[in-house]
């Protein structure tokens, strides 16, 4: 059978990957850095808009389409919390807000969701990172935090 050194190597490797797994579960469920999930009741929308829900509370309904986002540029005050709903109205797109953990796929007719708080003022690029046709490299939106 497997010799004793080999057994030790397997035990060490297993311990390593299991501890990685425990840590990421802690980060997801304990620290709230979780992934988007299935929202069976969310209706795909066709119009993009930024809705103010309250003081520094916003809902962004983002539409990705060949080859821009709708709305393509939004302005919000620093410290705002934004619920981002994202959908594509044509092909696959990406929605990556640089320097944040917002990294979403926009899939036709499937609503994606995440929540993010913008503390630091500045201009955040929203880059489409999934190939979506000949002008894919020009598909960039902006979130301006003032």
């Amino acid at each position, binding site marked *: *059978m*497997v*010799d004793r*050194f*080999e057994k030790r*190597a*397997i035990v060490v*490797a*297993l311990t*390593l*990957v*299991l501890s*990685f*797994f425990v840590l*990421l*579960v802690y*980060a*997801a469920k304990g620290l709230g*850095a*979780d*992934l*988007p*999930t*299935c*929202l*069976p009741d*969310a209706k*795909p929308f066709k119009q993009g808009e930024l809705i103010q829900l309250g003081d520094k509370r916003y809902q962004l309904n983002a539409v990705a*389409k*060949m*080859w821009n986002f709708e709305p393509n540029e939004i302005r919000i005050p620093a410290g705002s919390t934004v619920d981002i709903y994202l959908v594509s109205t*044509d*092909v*696959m797109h990406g929605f*990556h807000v*640089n320097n944040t*953990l*917002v*990294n*979403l*796929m926009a*899939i*036709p*007719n*499937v*609503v*994606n*969701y995440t929540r993010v708080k913008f503390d630091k003022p500045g201009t955040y*690029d929203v*880059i*489409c*990172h*999934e*190939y*979506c*046709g*000949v002008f*894919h*490299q*020009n598909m960039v939106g902006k979130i301006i935090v003032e």
Partner: protein
Amino acid sequence: MENVLTGQKVASARSRDELLSGASRFIILSEIVFPFLLLILGVALGLLQVLARAGVLKDSHYFGWIEYYQGLTLHGVINAIVFTTYIIVAFSNALMVSVLKRPLKMGVQWVSWAMMLVGTLMAAFAMLTGRANVLYTFYPPLIAHWTFYVGTVLFVVGSIIPFFLDWIPNYRAWKRENPSARMPLAVLGTFVNFTLWFVMLVPVAIEILFQLLPLSLGLVDEVNSLLARTLFWFFGHPLVYFWLLPAYVMLYTMLPKIVGGKLYSDPAARLAFMLFLIFSVPVGLHHQYTEGGLSANFKLLHAFLTFMVALPSFITAFTVAASLEYGARQQGGRGLFGWWAKLPYFSTKGDQWLFSYFVAGLLLFLFGGITGIINASYNMNMVVHNTSFVSGHFHTTVGGLVTLSFLGISLYLIAKLRGSEVAFKKLAVAMPYLWLVGFFIFDAAKSVVGIMGAPRRTNMGLSYADSASPLYQPDWVVWNHLTMLGGIIAVVGFVLYMVSFFGTLFAKRVNEPSTEMPIAEALHDNPAPVLSNFRPWLIAMVVLIAIAYTQPLIEAFRVTEKSPAYKENMPVPLKMMQGGQ
């Protein structure tokens, strides 16, 4: 004659011609030379891509010739599907002849050969004429010409035919002649790999035949894109193990022999292959972490199973390192690290030139393993998903260990099958180290700029890397240029390899043609019978797949609104364009 690995008598009173006919040599040789000619185009397009992404080329087309995303489609399909699959089939064919000592079944082989050739030509037609600018993931609702889909299906079905109709019957016949022998390790690894290949082809065949082909032909108007994507990654991640396992077969069977030693542990090697069998498939959701429509808890389950499939690679890392140490100590290596000096890094003696391909591949794969675990790490994936971090990663895995071991074995087989000596051996030995340095720089630079936010699959020369563009990202420039430097160094290595490849192909015959492979015996032997018995592992595989995929597929099926087809150059559905004409 007795086989040292398994102790069984080899029933080989057969003459050389009976074992390896001219036609079977032609089959295997053409399965290496044809994809290699395509690979030259694939590598050239890779070089053009790093130039475009560094902003050196700022155009939608390369010199008015091939469009960027058309070139990217060709680069991905040729390098990662056509070249890899061809070499896996050619290597496995040669391995079966070499280990089982039974001739190939020529009728089966010709059918497989013709299907793969016709399939490749159909897909090449679609891609080269700009009818399939959909990248190698071909996500709908972007749609390609039907020849792309039919060609792909013909190609992959052709590639699996020898497994069912040649190798399995030949193994059964071998087993009847050697009833007490256990399945040779090389055969076990190959059979695990092609079992995986069969299983993973089911979902992608469903996607192509029931979703994409009807849409492409206009038989249906709409497609469920999330379902298609989920079926694609049901195939797309196990695919990487289909590339990897033949390299592992080489590392377990050939590498220890080349360094003058033994395989450290035969049971550990078998365990690794069986673990791949059960854990390779139910992991595809780790490509879909950042999308809606699929439950986060199932993404977490796939993350867990992805960590489990890292386990056999950890086992392989240990076993290969232990085998290298054993071999080096047999050659007089001493001390805790001193034995490293006794490995044949630059040797051109006999088959030892192959060592450079394996060791450079393994060093790249170290980084590939680490970056792979980062990609798989659920929430950490949000930092890197679809950034150039990911393309850096897979150029050290499929572009690293897999490509280097496949190029090494191609050169080896060309020489053996033609009965020639490897020509320009020094160039052949230099190549893997240039590739190693090049792709190390490439991966490091792509990782950094990926974390800064640079997207993958993007013609950055037209925007982010163009100083005249409002989208210009000055912080990325130095990393884009380093990526280019790494790419150029690797391509220089490839050019050296080409010299050796064609030199060997046209060198004069000095030996008897054969498929003989250096196969090591094991230091620790005696695997438990369960490690050579597929049944319990196959059952575990099916159960795990059912648990991991039933709910995600139901969720994807529930998407009721579907999408019409689009071409990559118009922001309106294809039907509307055709209606307006």
